[in-house]
């Protein structure tokens, strides 16, 4: 419990730092508040209009006061409206969040779902044809970044065969599951391919090491079946690096989502952030960045907790101080 509380305290500290820096970012834009005013009101704002904008955004307050005011708005969902399109920022984020979440979850899930069995069997059949094919293809996939994979997939599946629609248009899974999965198929594949390759290699390596342990030999001697041996006895102690890798990859995954959403014109958080930057919709960028940062921070918090579950040695080691 002390470990959990310490991790929670660290997480809260990071959240405060991130939200504080984000909340005051508007003050440090090149051109200062004049730029904000011009963006909000259009060129040629009167002095009164300028003052109203500055007040509305809390730029006239001391930093701490501005932060608490901003946090209050953030927590109550009172995020204001976009400069140019007069849309609710909260609604924009609400529209983009599920898209990116689905994409990250699907990408991660697909990568793990493919990587785990492939790595386990590869390790078990080390140096077999299957192993060589799997490791070679993984190496090739690792060297293919998203921005190469995406246009190839679009060309193959959309432009040439018309099998998958392009651009991808988000449809709720509850409204039309088929359209939903069609929209996410290529973006998910684009995200998952390099992830899969990395996970497969990491897990294979750990599995090979685990399979050489005495307890595996003992289990085998006791007549434990191959499936049980691999997935019950060997997999769990081999997961540590994979979980670490999956957690660390969340940051990269978010970066990948930004790129992939741009390629497939999928309106998620990544595209919202990029387009908002291009349009200089700074408050939208602020909230989008904070949301993405919070997701990253809390996922890492849970991953830290997961370490202790996966490997009791971590728990014991940390308990000892």
């Amino acid at each position, binding site marked *: 419990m002390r470990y959990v509380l310490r991790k929670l305290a660290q997480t809260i500290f990071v959240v405060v730092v991130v939200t504080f820096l984000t909340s005051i970012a508007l003050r440090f834009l090149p051109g200062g508040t004049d730029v904000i005013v*011009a*963006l909000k009101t*259009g*060129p*040629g704002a009167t002095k009164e209009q300028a003052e109203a904008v500055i007040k509305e955004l809390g730029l006239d307050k001391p930093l701490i006061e501005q932060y608490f005011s901003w946090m209050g708005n953030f927590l109550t969902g009172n995020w204001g*409206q*976009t400069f*140019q*399109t*007069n*849309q*609710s920022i909260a609604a*924009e984020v609400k*529209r983009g969040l599920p898209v990116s979440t689905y994409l990250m979850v699907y990408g991660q899930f697909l990568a793990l779902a493919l990587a785990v069995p492939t790595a386990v069997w590869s390790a078990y059949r080390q140096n077999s044809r299957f192993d060589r094919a799997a490791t070679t293809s993984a190496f090739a996939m690792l060297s293919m970044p998203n921005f190469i994979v995406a246009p190839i997939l*679009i*060309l193959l599946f*959309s*432009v040439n065969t*018309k099998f*998958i*629609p*392009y*651009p991808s*248009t988000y449809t709720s899974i509850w409204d039309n599951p088929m359209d939903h999965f069609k929209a996410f198929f290529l973006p998910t594949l684009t995200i998952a391919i390099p992830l899969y390759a990395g996970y497969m290699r990491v897990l294979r390596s750990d599995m090979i090491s685990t399979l050489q342990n005495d307890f595996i030999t003992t289990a085998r001697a006791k007549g434990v079946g191959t499936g049980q041996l691999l997935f019950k006895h060997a997999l769990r102690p081999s997961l540590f690096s994979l979980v670490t890798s999956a957690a660390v990859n969340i940051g990269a995954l978010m970066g990948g989502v930004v790129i992939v959403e741009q390629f497939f*014109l999928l*309106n998620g958080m990544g*595209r919202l952030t990029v*387009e908002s930057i*291009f*349009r*200089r919709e700074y408050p939208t960028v602020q909230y989008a960045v904070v949301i993405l940062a919070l997701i990253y921070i809390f996922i890492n918090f849970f991953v830290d907790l997961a370490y202790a579950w996966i490997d009791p040695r971590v728990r014991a080691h940390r308990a000892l101080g």
Partner: protein
Amino acid sequence: MGHLNAPSRRTPGRLLAALVISAGLIGAACGGDDEGSKTTEGSSPGSETTAGGSDSTAVATTAPPPTSAAEEVPVAGGNLIFAIEADTSSPWRPSEMVCAIACHQVIRNIFDTLTLPNDSGGWSPYLASAVTPNEDFTVWSITAREGVTFHDGTPFDGAAIVDNLTRAKAGILTGNIFRAIDSIAIDPADPMTAVVTAKTSWAAFPFAIMGQAGYQASPTWLAASDTDNSLKSKPVGTGPFVYADYKPNEVFKMTKNAGYWNAPYPYLDSIEFRPIADGLNRRDALKSGTVDMIHTTNSETIVANRESGEFLSTEIANNAETSYTLLHVSQEGSPLTDVRVRCALAYASDQQLLIDTIGAGLNQIAFGPFSPTMVGYLDSTGYPEAQDMAKAQELIAAYKAENPGPLSLSLATTQDQTNLTVAQQQQEWWTQAGIDEVTIDQIDQANYIVTALLGNFQVFQWRNHGGFDLDMQYHWWHSDAAPPVGDLALNFGRIRDPQLDALLEENRASTDPARKKAIAEEVNRLFGTQCYNLWGSHTIWDILYKEGVHGPVTFELPEGGNAIFGAGIAGTFYPMTVWVDQ
């Protein structure tokens, strides 16, 4: 308006989205003379005047006929998904829109304009049933068409016109167009008529109300959106389609206005406009079958489709915009105030090379602001027609002899890679000509327009000046619209030329087609010899659509004659004429 030189891989979409602020203000420039078809006088059906840009050679081309069978009987119904190059507006209020071509292509389905350009090179009433001047063209009466209501049920009448025009006059950008208007009021004798009083004789006034300044929005909606910002993105007009949904950067949906006053239009039940900024992505979306129609200026796509015939196509080249490099010609201490330096830059440039290498050789090289179908177009304007580096070096040397010290220039471009490539090529040419230092400033797109409006630049990549009557260029070039740097102005280059002013003023008041043509040609020569801008190429817009879609055509105007493409801005057409196989 707005941007760089020859359309190319990444140029058209993002750049236009950012740059074309004010082309939306009106459809600019002269009525035109078409390369093939010549028609007779372009006076305005339904109007007592011979208003607008018409002459014996003036005509609007409607571009090559659609490849689909135009003779087929249109069928009502169906949905069209149309990928456009940008989502450039909202607030969707006529007096506030910052509008590129894509924005006009969308919004003119919701808002009708009071007038439209016709195929005689002049104008015709459209939503207005009559637009009539007094004898000296200082007072214009605009009569609302009977029986028309806005989508929200608000009647379209004289008060609605007054409200819309008054807001346009007060608009930061649209106000530039109406600078010459003294008052706008309802006719005491006729509630269906608005009376516009100009400060001077303004025979070409109807051209000013065929674009953004002439869009008619519901006064009820305008009033409500004055206090409720969220309504600003839900426009209400009298147009052939009714607003259904708008998600910025994703989709603008509209459904058929079943009671549209100009029956039998529209044919489609609904249209979805989806912004896809990159021209090649747009093409791929069409190839994948996800969208039914796209528009593009991407040379590679246009040339490839001409060769393959993969998609049905309607090319729109009439009254086209010209891409060019804009020069700030009156900044104190700037070398660009000297005509020798300006023309040296022109002599040093090889525009044809850029067209061939970056623009797939598609577009016609420009030697002036007017494209071939516009009144005032000349094959030769006095502008340097081919690269002559020796001449450029000679001019720069002469300038330096009188103005010792380092000679430097700042060239602004966007963050678009193609534009940067062009800028780097210009930098190389101009340095070779003798400019000591040419720096390139990449400016983010949102700031690009503001920079132009404020006049905070020396050399700028741009595209503009499509249109019908020369009067539509008035606010781009007249010294009235050239305040000091730091003030907002549409005369971006701050041209202050008394001869140009006089020509623009004479054209504004003139109704004689022959004289108007002569004036426009004189303006063209002035731009050529003074090298106020460095001309690039004339733009072609291509509408590509798949089998089963019956592409855009023009239509008969209520008071006679035919509408032509490119009303609000060059390259636009009328989606209400599109229909799809059922």
